[in-house]
């Protein structure tokens, strides 16, 4: 109940600001908060990164092992993505197996990586039909202040770009960098009443009507999208968000790099 009241007040405040063309923290509608990327911070992982967007803080690790391919893709490595919304990160996160929010999050990150064909999974085949590299991409949210979709995606991209295939340890020849083909970029925007805001902070997420996550590649082609929340978007709004996403993607690509 109290939450409900606070939420109403906050919503009113945010709406009022937006009607004057302003966001709570002074950003413009298409402006990201400060992004920092620390790559390679986990020595026990084959690749890793810690990414902060404003106060949102996530750590991503890649562990690789040798295993069997899926029967329908005998010549490709395997990618498994998991996101943990650990209770450390927010008073609203509860211990236990991933809930629907964590599952949507990990599946959206996975889709962005997988559908962009970022990883050259064929180069992660060791013996066709028998042995391939298995990639476990594990995401932990340490501090939740909005826009986990992008923070986790950037963490995943940065960790993969930093990954060394541990071939020597498994007696499969020399170590080599993770074979990558593309550098996809993802953006997330929310709609609050009639405003489209990129990189929503937590307070903005709490009052958002709709959300759209867009993944594009260097050629400016679409690789993945995910609309969320109960609000509607018009086709014009969808197109506006995609256009802005493409515009922002160059700058973001340099930061995540």
């Amino acid at each position: 109940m109290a939450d409900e009241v606070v939420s109403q007040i906050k919503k009113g405040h945010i709406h009022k600001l937006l009607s004057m063309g302003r966001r709570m923290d002074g950003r413009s509608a298409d402006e990201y908060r400060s992004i920092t990327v620390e790559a390679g911070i986990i020595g026990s992982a084959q690749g890793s990164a810690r990414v902060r967007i404003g106060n949102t803080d996530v750590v991503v690790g890649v562990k690789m092992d040798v295993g069997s391919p899926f029967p329908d893709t005998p010549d490709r490595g395997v990618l498994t993505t998991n996101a943990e919304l650990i209770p450390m990160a927010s008073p609203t996160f509860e211990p236990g197996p991933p809930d629907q929010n964590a599952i949507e999050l990990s599946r959206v990150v996975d889709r962005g990586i997988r559908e962009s064909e970022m990883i050259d999974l064929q180069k992660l085949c060791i013996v066709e039909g028998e042995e391939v590299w298995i990639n476990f991409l594990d995401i932990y949210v340490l501090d939740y202040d909005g826009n986990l979709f992008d923070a986790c995606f950037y963490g995943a991209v940065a960790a993969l770009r930093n990954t060394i295939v541990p071939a020597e340890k498994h007696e499969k020849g020399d170590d080599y960098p993770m074979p990558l083909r593309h550098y996809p970029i993802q953006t997330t925007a929310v709609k609050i009443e009639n405003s489209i805001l990129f990189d929503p902070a937590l307070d903005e997420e709490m009052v958002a009507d709709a959300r759209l996550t867009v993944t594009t590649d260097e050629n400016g082609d679409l690789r993945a999208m995910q609309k969320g929340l109960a609000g509607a978007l018009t086709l014009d709004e969808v197109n506006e968000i995609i256009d802005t996403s493409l515009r922002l993607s160059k700058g973001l690509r340099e930061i995540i790099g």
Partner: protein
Amino acid sequence: MSEIVDDIKFIDEEGKRIDGRRVDEMRPLKIEAGVLKRADGSAYLEWGDNKVMAAVYGPRECHPRHMQNPSRAIIQCRYNMMSFSVSDRKRPGPDRRSIEISKIISEALENVVFTENFPRTSIDVYIEVLQANAGTRVAGLTAASVALADAGIPMRDLVPAVAVGKADGHIILDLNGKEDNFGSADLPIAMIPRTGEVLLMQMDGHMTMEELDLALSYAKKACQEIYDIQRDALHRRYASQAGTEDDNDDDDDLPDEEA
């Protein structure tokens, strides 16, 4: 989307697909409302080789308590594939895919239900896929909104949904199983014809901006078509309930209070 693509021919010289459809042609769609006794509302749908049942219970007391919303009803959708609905047997119980789909369908339905009329309650939507052949999430959402209407739950509109995709370099409407397995992009979308509002949208694969535009235009046209079939199913349901005396084609008895 599988990465193994494009050596199969999905469109022949005459522009026909493997099942004889044009690129912008939907598979046959049949919907029947009010097919279950215990549920408050229900709908059975056959769409190409998809067979989907949807049932609605509620508004009813929300369990567990802490999920209650003091100002409105919550929509809890559970999308499920029966173990034998797919080629390799699926273990019973929710997997990560079905949990994600349940979430986005719940969100799309929340948009059209007047949830503020039923504070603290839950409206439970169950979607069961008896037989799957690509596009089950949009089939499920399409059936679910008919089941909600059949349950007499106040809604501002029905929600038609369809998938557009890409195979063999062409944008094609309403992918069938083969096109889905070997295609190179998939874009499920729910759009309200009257307003053009998008309630559900996902995309994976590879599309240029031009292809996206074409895909969305196919989707828009198809959603109108699906919407008409949804309305027709409800008309037949109301007619059969009302008996013979009220068998007209008037729209007034449909749940579009804001029309």
